[in-house]
């Protein structure tokens, strides 16, 4: 059996990143993700990787741009205000088709907000976030185990499509302790193939250029149309989710991250009381699992969207279901975390005597 350890979510993430063969971290401390740079500074030193504590998140994302353009797996982590600062760099990285991993341990906003867990960066994560036509692959873990496993998946998807990938966690997942199973064999970075686009000196080949601009008339349009084809392929192939009790459900809860864990408990409470309630837990937020929701909308009358925000993902649920079903919302903005009884109460309100 694989080794099992009780760990903080943020620590599990560090080990997951290292197990994914990443040897470059640059970042700036910000609560609630400080455990990541702290442990990274120790672990990267132990294994001969690079750890840079930067002067800003702007600098961190650009160091990532450099390290990843050199063909290496590179990651940074931050929390909401810091991720806002990184948007310029993420846009350039997306425009240069370079794979990187950015982790957002989301906290309450807007502004300095607070340091409590939140999901209010959904729009930012799933709409590109910075300027220009682009998307970032966005994964939503809901356990310490996911935080350990998702970095590998994120790097694989990022490299497959040459696109930045985001992991959208939150303060609760990062700070929570859970058992983590070191399920997969760590990747030796030396075993990763050299990238045919990496900057490493032009010995024996044509020089390579990594850039996000093209000023020649009509050229950028062509590049962006090509990128749109890539996005269509990702949307087509990479929608990830999990369903629970959905087959006979009168109501399906749609949630991700912490909300999907809380909703899981609420679903069990409802089932105990005889309500036919299911859970659709989203793993990819971009690409949004619209196909499964579109199918479900044909037979499920009610959806309850649970978010730690004033309602952002609900827009995508409406789009995916084409509003064919009734869509209800339960949200806790500004650092509030819903409880299972709270969600159960909403289920009762919606389904009333339908048990």
């Amino acid at each position, binding site marked *: 059996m694989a080794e099992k350890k009780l760990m903080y979510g943020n620590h599990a993430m560090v080990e997951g990143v290292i197990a994914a063969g990443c040897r470059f971290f640059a970042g700036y401390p910000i609560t609630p993700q400080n455990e990541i740079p702290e442990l990274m500074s120790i672990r990267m030193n132990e294994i001969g990787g690079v750890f840079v504590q930067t*002067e800003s998140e702007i*600098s961190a994302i*650009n*160091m990532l741009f*450099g390290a990843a353009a050199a063909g290496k797996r590179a990651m940074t982590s931050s929390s909401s205000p810091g991720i806002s600062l990184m948007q310029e760099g993420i846009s*350039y990285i997306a425009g240069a088709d370079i794979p990187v991993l950015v982790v957002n341990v989301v906290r309450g906003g807007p502004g300095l907000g607070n340091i409590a867990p939140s999901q209010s960066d959904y729009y930012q994560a799933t709409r590109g976030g910075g300027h220009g036509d682009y998307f970032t692959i966005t994964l939503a873990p809901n356990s310490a185990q996911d935080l350990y496993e998702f970095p590998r998946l994120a790097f694989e998807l990022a490299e497959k499509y040459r696109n930045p990938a985001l992991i959208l966690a939150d303060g609760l997942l990062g700070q929570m302790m859970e058992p983590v199973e070191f399920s997969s064999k760590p990747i030796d970075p030396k075993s990763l193939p050299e990238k045919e686009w990496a*900057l490493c000196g032009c010995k024996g080949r044509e*020089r390579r*250029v990594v850039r996000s601009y093209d000023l020649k008339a009509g050229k950028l349009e062509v590049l962006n149309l090509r990128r749109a084809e890539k996005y269509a392929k990702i949307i087509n192939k990479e929608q990830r989710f999990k369903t629970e009790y959905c087959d006979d459900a009168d109501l399906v809860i749609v949630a991700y991250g912490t909300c999907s864990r809380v909703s899981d408990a609420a679903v069990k409470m409802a089932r105990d009381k005889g309500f036919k309630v299911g859970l659709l837990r989203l793993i990819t937020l971009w690409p949004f699992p619209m196909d499964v929701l579109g199918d479900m909308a044909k037979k499920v009358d009610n959806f309850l969207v649970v978010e730690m925000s004033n309602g952002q993902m609900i827009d995508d649920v409406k789009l995916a279901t084409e509003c064919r079903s009734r869509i209800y919302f339960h949200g806790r903005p500004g650092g509030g975390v819903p409880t299972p009884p709270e969600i159960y109460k909403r289920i009762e309100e919606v389904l009333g005597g339908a048990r």
Partner: protein
Amino acid sequence: MKMIFGRPLGLTETLQRYCPGCGHGIVHRIIGELLVKLDIRERTIGIAPVGCSVFADEYFNCDMIQPPHGRGPAIATGLKRTRPECIVFSYQGDGDLAAMGTAEIIHAAARSENITVIFINNAIFGMTGGQMAPTTLPGMKSTTSVKGRDIGKQGFPIKVCEMLASLDGPYYLERCAVDTPRNVIRTEKALKTAFANQISNKGFSMVEILSMCPTGWGQTPVQAKKWLGEVMAEYYPLGVFRDLSKEEK
């Protein structure tokens, strides 16, 4: 027929789009020659700035990357730390280095990243059409200081070499100019030192180069060279501001 003067292998065949009398072409040529003379072209990664020399990624015949405005030293850090066997240079103008990227250059210097920075100071924003730069001299006219830079309202220029020399990190800092043959030769020597320092893992080296922008200054190329020598170099004195190799001896 024997060719006695041609384009160095360190530059591509691409036609450079600089104005007549601009200093960028001179500095490009020096770097292009040094990439060959130091035998580093095939392991060099260059970083182009945002500004007139954004197209430097088409001009230098080596691997190149084009970062966001001012972030060159951060990109350089990422490249150099993951590819220490490569030679990494960041080519930056005054908007790039002394305005947008002030934090990045200061901290790369403070960490003494083993990189080479080439800082072109022409006291004006060239590409966007002659607006005031952080290095525009007091009283100097630009399209955003039409009556001359008013230090009461627009503050003082930034003297980058002097500022970075206040840090312990930098290994080598020198300010040169490309207005006269003598100064061009001096610039070549400084750039050679800055690359050689990186080759022998000495740490952060930066050469600031005072450079003409006749178009932005509203002068002829000849007037611009004269003005650089007589006015600009008075405000920004040429010389070595840090050379730790002297202390090692």
